[in-house]
């Protein structure tokens, strides 16, 4: 068959092949891929949707170029199941050659992917999961969400300063819940307060009524709550039925319970509730106003919550790291570039702690109020630059 080709034909064929193949080769060189693994179906689907929307918004606003490279995002749905998360992470590494993996809606999912990040030497940007230990699972993990202890300790301080002496805690029985309980109980006890009981409700299909009744019977000054975002509405409905206010029991919680995405559906019973969190849709800053307006314009039925912020800032961090390495995608260099990075996020000033690779950020004490016909968490106190208390305590020992 080759004999039949004339020299001219051969040259022509070569030229065509060169034209077709070269741009592909150049393009492959200039594309940096980041794999985002989040639950988009199943019970934690809202986490995935918020993160996806935020990342798309970020790329729409800032373009798809960073450090001279085109950034391509690949979304994967792990349905909230850890072994699927792990496989998807592995496939993204070996098939798509991603420069980083990101997302991770729940603690076990982030932990399942940790060995892959270590083995492949690429950054794992945790955008949602909130247990302290996560960043210790691999030297390549960087977090842009929050830790439960980080949100909880300022709330315990607030409680002590506001005459709350006796408390009962009720948390979801898994990593983040136990972190929140420990942080709250330790702080209250250290401040001379009294913990009457620490209750834990199962994570899956919880029935809160018996726990709430028990808490009420103990007559504390305040009941502290934590459940993961998504279960807040169900919990608050049962809290409302118990009428804690009649017995002068304050109900306080981490911001997961009054998740901005669900808050409007909870009704007037949550009005006045005190929570602590690193982000509220109502955060009063020009950066946040622009962010919320753009987010709601792109997604008319959604309200950005703290999960969206984790995704948005995770992308900002990845872009900034790529700029700093001038497009070098070496995992260790990217993680080094991320350490100590500080910038202004819609949630306020944030930075990555160079020692722990965990996020350092303001935590706000908020109160649920009605504004323009809608419910919002209105911030009234700011605790600046909070580090993860669990790791800070370890470092102090």
């Amino acid at each position, binding site marked *: 068959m080759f004999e039949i080709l004339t020299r001219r034909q051969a040259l022509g064929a070569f030229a065509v092949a060169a034209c077709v193949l070269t741009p592909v080769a150049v393009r492959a060189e200039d594309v940096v891929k980041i794999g985002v693994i989040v639950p988009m179906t199943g019970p934690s689907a809202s986490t995935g949707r918020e993160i996806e929307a935020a990342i798309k918004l970020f790329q729409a606003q800032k373009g798809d170029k960073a450090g001279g490279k085109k950034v391509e995002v690949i979304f994967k749905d792990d349905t909230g199941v*850890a072994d699927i998360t792990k496989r998807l992470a592995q*496939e993204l590494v070996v098939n798509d050659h991603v420069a980083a993996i990101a997302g991770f809606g729940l603690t076990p999912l982030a932990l399942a992917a940790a060995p892959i990040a270590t083995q492949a030497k690429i950054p794992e940007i945790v955008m949602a999961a909130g247990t302290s230990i996560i960043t210790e699972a691999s030297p390549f993990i960087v977090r842009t969400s929050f830790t439960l202890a980080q949100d909880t300790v300022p709330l315990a301080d607030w409680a002590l300063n506001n005459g709350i002496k006796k408390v009962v805690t009720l948390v979801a029985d898994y990593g983040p819940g136990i972190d929140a309980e420990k942080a709250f109980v330790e702080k209250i006890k250290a401040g001379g307060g009294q913990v009457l009981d620490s209750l834990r409700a199962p994570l899956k299909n919880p029935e809160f009524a018996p726990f709430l009744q028990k808490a009420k019977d103990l007559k504390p000054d305040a009941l502290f709550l934590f459940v993961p975002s998504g279960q807040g509405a169900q919990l608050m409905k049962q809290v409302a039925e118990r009428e804690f206010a009649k017995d002068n029991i304050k109900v306080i919680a981490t911001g997961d319970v009054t998740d901005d995405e669900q808050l409007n559906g909870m009704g007037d019973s949550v009005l006045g509730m005190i929570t602590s969190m690193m982000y509220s849709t109502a955060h009063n800053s020009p950066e946040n106003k622009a962010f919320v307006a753009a987010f709601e314009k792109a997604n008319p039925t959604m309200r950005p919550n703290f999960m969206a912020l984790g995704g948005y800032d995770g992308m900002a961090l990845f872009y900034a790291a790529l700029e700093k390495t001038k497009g070098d995608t070496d995992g260790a260099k990217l993680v080094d570039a991320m350490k100590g990075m500080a910038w202004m996020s819609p949630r306020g000033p944030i930075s990555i702690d160079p020692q722990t690779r965990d996020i350092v950020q303001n935590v706000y004490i908020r109160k649920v109020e009605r504004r323009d016909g809608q419910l919002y968490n209105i911030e009234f106190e700011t605790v600046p630059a909070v580090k993860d208390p669990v790791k800070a305590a370890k470092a102090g020992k």
Partner: protein
Amino acid sequence: MTDATATDSRSGTDRAMIYFAERARWRGPEVALWIGAFALAFLFPSRALLFNEVAILALFALSLDLVLGYAGIVSLGHGAFFGLGAYAAGLLAKAGAGAAPLSDPTLGLLFAALVCAAVGYVTSFLVLRGSDLTRLMVTLGVALIFQEIANRMAWLTGGADGLQGVAPANILGMFEFDLYGRNAYLYSLTVLMVLFVFARKIVHSPFGISLRAIKGNSLRAGAIGIPVNRRLNGAYTLGAAYAGVAGALLAQTTAFVSLDVLDFHRSADVMLIVVFGGVGTLYGAVVGAAAFKAMYDVLAAATPQYWEFWLGLVLVLLVLFVRGGVMGLLGAFYARLQRVGGRP
């Protein structure tokens, strides 16, 4: 048996033996299927991780087919044994800290099989106490109890955060679990094939045939002298051990165990797969698992948010319009092909 005529001079027993031998014979497409499965590892190395999941799911479905398709025990809690096997192998590998002998994968499989067989045997007495609906509830209840125990024993299982530090040693002391997942797939597939051949032997053995008799009519089976309950105990125990090995494979190849291995959706998925592939055919489990994962992979890549809708639709259509699942469909096609080919 339509070709057995009245003029046949052989005795009834002989004819029955020939019939069963014929049924147990290996056929061409079966051999091709297994060779093809091994070839996949080299043809599509980039998808080895997905194939690994298929192999594990196929083994799990096979274990349910033994219980459901042959012994006729309807179980909605088969995931309990899958999860138990995963934790057994995971904890053993963790105890060995990545070094033989404790972290040896083969030992892990044996250990998981033994633990699950023991628990399966004990719970089989509970399961046999009722009829279908009761069994459904009992199996479901047992699975829920296991999940809650694993959740409560967080000091051992890691609770809702999952079991960390599962580090299996190299397979047979030689092959490492690589990042591409090829060795993991070949390992899981080999285990699947060995156990499949064994299951095939069992269902064609007198034990397996007596199970079919029990499934057909347990009163009559008892009347002709088959020890019904003992046989069912045995089948349930065997199914539990198989499910445990599947769980152990998952723990070893992902080096991680989360509470999710005991979740209800595992039991429900595997039931779907067996029904989808064809109940009581053994191959239905393998084909069903492959089809289920393939559909998931294609649909989830195309529409990450709505793949469950399409999966549901396909399943409903298949159950409505195809009798005997995929294997029923293939069987009808094969019979037609032979008729067209002019062979008897």
